């Protein structure tokens, strides 16, 4: 990271001092630059210079979690499990795979399901060295759970479906059990955040007496194509019928005049307030008055994740990208174009109060930096939604 870069971040400590509400002419919304003190903790150490690098979307896993995992591995290694369990999907080859970040930080590919889809597959159990395995029954569960990191150990299962695969008995050889969960209602999308995780797993359990059960997990990812429906309150009666015109019915532009009296007056406009994940933010910034020496201007995409409720609310804000819009100092009358492609960033739709546990919101933050590295910014919420992938 260069010196300049560092300065940018340190500059975040500066507080914007004199901020005055501007009079908006006619019906335009009145606004002002917000009082905000950048907390260094909130500024992701993104490499500003190289956007082609993958962005760090998730905070590092907590130490405990990693530790826990390694203990597990150790135990498994020490007492070799008497059998191997494989879970596979019936259409595993043709089904779309998406990257999924595991707890240990590794990324694996996982199958992608839509809500209302049937989840069909088979479980293969293979005793090791043809050893006999006694059990009290085999079952497969489909769990949808929310895990709050600050509330370790507490899983909230919002979905739980069970299929019995075998009655109690003994296993001598490789055995295959087909399973099917038909038309599974998956009300929420998978999400892997800073303080919260929402995931769907298939859990195979071989119950045993006296010794611990043998358990195998298979995680998969769920997305909901027409997530915006939640906002537009037009829930589909029949989940199989997909809405192929997923554009929000109302999608106004964001237009606002902001400034500091006698210093800086700008008017900015984003063409829409709701964007799909591969959308482009088009807009412009018009300088009405410039009396401070600006150095550059950037547009940040920020994600605000709030978890818990009441006094136990945790809010985590991440800056996903800093996209430079302008280099140098403009003069009055200049109009600077905005065109920001969202596809490179790992965004999710906006989540509103998921199972009363968490919310994820997105903001566009317009930041103007002056020559003394003071930052002037104005944050606007945008709504993200998932567009049906036609491919």
């Amino acid at each position: 990271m260069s010196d300049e870069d560092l300065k940018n971040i340190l500059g975040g400590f500066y507080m914007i001092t004199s901020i005055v509400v501007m009079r908006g002419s006619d019906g335009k919304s009145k606004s002002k630059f917000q009082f905000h003190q950048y907390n260094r903790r909130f500024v992701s150490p993104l490499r500003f210079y190289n956007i082609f690098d993958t962005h760090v979307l998730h905070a590092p896993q907590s130490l405990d979690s990693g530790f826990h995992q390694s203990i597990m591995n150790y135990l498994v290694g020490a007492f070799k499990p008497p059998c191997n369990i494989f879970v596979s999907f019936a259409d595993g080859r043709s089904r779309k795979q998406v990257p999924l970040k595991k707890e240990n930080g590794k990324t694996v590919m996982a199958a992608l399901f839509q809500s209302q889809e049937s989840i069909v597959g088979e479980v293969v159990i293979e005793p090791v060295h043809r050893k006999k395995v006694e059990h009290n029954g085999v079952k497969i569960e489909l769990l949808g759970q929310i895990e709050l990191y600050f509330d370790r150990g507490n899983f909230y299962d919002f979905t739980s479906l069970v299929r019995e695969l075998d009655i109690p008995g003994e296993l001598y050889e490789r055995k295959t059990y087909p399973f099917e969960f038909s038309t599974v209602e998956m009300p929420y999308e998978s999400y892997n955040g800073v303080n919260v995780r929402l995931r769907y797993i298939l859990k195979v359990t071989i119950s045993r007496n006296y010794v611990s059960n043998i358990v195998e997990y298979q995680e998969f990812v769920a997305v909901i194509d027409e997530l915006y429906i939640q906002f537009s309150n037009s829930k589909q009666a029949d989940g199989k019928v997909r809405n192929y015109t997923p554009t929000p019915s109302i999608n106004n532009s964001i237009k606002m005049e902001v400034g500091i009296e006698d210093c800086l007056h700008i008017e900015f406009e984003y063409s829409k307030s709701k964007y799909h994940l591969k959308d482009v933010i088009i807009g412009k910034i018009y300088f009405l008055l410039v009396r401070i020496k600006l150095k550059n201007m950037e547009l940040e995409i920020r994600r605000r994740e709030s978890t818990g409720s009441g006094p136990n609310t945790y809010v985590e804000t991440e800056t996903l990208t800093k996209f430079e819009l302008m280099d140098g100092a403009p003069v009055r009358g200049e109009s600077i174009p905005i065109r920001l492609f969202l596809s490179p960033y790992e965004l999710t739709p906006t989540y509103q109060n998921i199972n009363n546990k968490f919310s994820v919101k997105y903001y566009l933050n317009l930041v103007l930096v002056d020559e003394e590295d003071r930052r002037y910014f104005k944050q606007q919420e945008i709504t993200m939604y998932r567009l049906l992938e036609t491919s």
Partner: protein
Amino acid sequence: MLNGTEDEEKWLAEGIAGIQHNAFYMHRALDSNNLREALKYSAQMLSELRTSKLSPHKYYELYMRAFNELKRLELFFKDDSKHDVSVVDLYELVQHAGNILPRLYLLCTVGSIYIKSKEAPAKEVLKDLVEMCRGVQHPIRGLFLRSYLAQISRDKLPDIGSEYEGSVDSYDSDMVLSSSSDADTVMDAVDFVLQNFTEMNKLWVRMQHQLKPSIAISGLQGPGGVREKREKDRSELQDLVGKNLHVLSQIEGVDLEMYKETVLPRVLEQVVNCKDDLAQYYLMDCIIQVFPDEYHLQTLERLLGACPQLQPTVDAKTVLSRLMDRLSNYAASGADVLPEFLQVEAFSKLSNAIGKVIQAQVDMPAVGAITLYVSLLTFTLRVHPDRLDHVDQVLGACVKKLSNIPKLEDSRAMKQVVALLSAPLEKYNDIVTALTLSNYPRVMDHLDIGTNKLMAMVIIQSIMKNNSCISTADKVEVLFELIKGLIKDIDGADVDELDEEDFKEEQNSVARLIHMLYNDEPEEMLKIICIVRKHTMVGGPKRLPFTVSSLVFSALRLLRQLQGQEGDIVGEEASMTPNKIFQLLTQIIESLSAVPSPELALRLYLQCAESARFLMKQAANGCDIEHVAYEFFTQAFVLYEEEIADSKAQVTAIHLIIGTLQRMNVFGYSARLLKKADQCRAVYACSHLFWVDDQDGIKDGERVLLCLKRALRIANAAQQMANVARGSGGPVSLFVEILNKYIYFFEKGNKQITSSAIQGLIELINTEMQSDSTNSDSVADAFIASTLRYIQFQKQKGGVVGEKFESVKL
């Protein structure tokens, strides 16, 4: 304190190293067809261009390195077999870059391929690029970025005949570019270039106000230093801006109509509105230089209309001068273009514009205004050589301007005035034309003395060179009014300062000039002479010697001319007698007495006498003329006797007189003229010249003898003449005098003077005395007696001298 230049070198070296480093990895990615890596490293490489530390000059160096690398990248992008990404996707992909500068460089690079692929109309891509570049507001970085855009788009403009013209949008409408129904036209190309030009110019102008100079200025330098540095920085960038105008001029489709309606108005609007003197000056000049002359001619009004609107500090004069120079050259290129000039009334437009500019720019120094007039004059001379009134008008305007200035002190201004005045002379090769310009002398009045002289010299030289003959009295009057700086002292001139040689040359020129004044008509010629005389007479003692002789000869020529024509003019020419001319001549020459320059006067008198003789030979009324001639001789002798003191001069004078006299053989009344006796005396006097009684003096005995012999011959002739005239002997005393000379040289030891010669002479005297006994001259008698006594005395005295005289018998 850190040395700014050294620091800058260091920064540049760092920047170059950064580019090379990233370029290396970029090449590797290109070689392995890895698009993602190529994009990553090219963006990093271009990030080096984000520096603010370099001066434009150094930044350019950095830019060029990046530019060369981008060419390789472009080749890679172009070949989609290497990366399997369509150009449309590529166009989006490069826009993912987080930093604006690398993003836009890459966008431009891909944009050029996008246009080439014809998957989108060129105009849409161009429009998008030029709009997106607004994001870079930093002057230097913005200028270079936009110049890169101009560079890569140059061969892809939808010009007439280009493959990108009229390409219909048959591409799939994508999310980047909105589709449009109409085809690309030249207008789109022009719009694009104009927009890029406008933005670049804004950035360039902004540099003046926003940027700190590239190198830190030490505290010692004042704000002037900063400003200077900044202007230097800016002027290094001017060609980037001007390049756009060049591109515009290269677009085939920009015909006169489009230039008139779109290009020029918009360019001028930008020029005027930017309110920056540096930019205005450069851009106006640029417009004038890059677009064709005929366009200028047809849009003259508009172009000139912008001039008074420029900032007062703009060097509008140079701009206008260049324009006029160009138009002049254009006019000179062929006769077929001249009607165009007339059609658009180029002269009056230019003239008006100059007037306005001068009015608008109050602070413009005189030199500026005059330079403008010079250009205008050159222009009108080339375009309307037949319109003298235009020339006069220009001069008149100049006079008006000059009259507001008390005194022209500026030497450069002087030079320009000289140029102004010389131009018509050079053009017309004929001073006569210039003389008809009423404002010409008025302009000259504004010159200082030295320059005035210089100008007068130029005029004279012009006359000489072209051998032009000034033939009327009026013109002569004007001419002398023009060159009065040369022919008389002007008040306040510092005479002591004059360089002798220059002065001589000037006056010689004037003298030569006088010879150029000629008219076949004697009466007119006489008038001319009178006028010249009037002017030259006031010239003072220093000038007269030069001018008078010319004048005299001029008059003499008139005489001869008169002579030749005498047959037909005798009757009517009552006022024009040779006598009158001779009177005039006498007066002229007399004026030399004030100088005093007796030698010259003497020669002139003699010349006149010679001419008179010549006239006399043929004239019927010879007597009058002879009288005149005699008068001249008299004058010459008076001078000789009274004024010429120096012996060398005397000798010359005497020789001249004698020479002339010898040709005067027609004088019947020689006695009345020069007495033979005087002649004789002169000659024997001459002998002394060859015998200087001194240690190392000249002792040329032979020549002494020659002189004496000649004197003797003359005396003899005189004697005979006296005999013929009066029937009696003449002046014996002459012989006695010659004898005395003989004796003198004899004594001094001249070997050529022998005693026998003295002996012979004495005998001759005696014979003469006897034959002339009738009216003996007592003076002569006494003289010979005393001479003989002297010889006797020497004999008796003895010694060396006495021995010598021994052989002389009395």
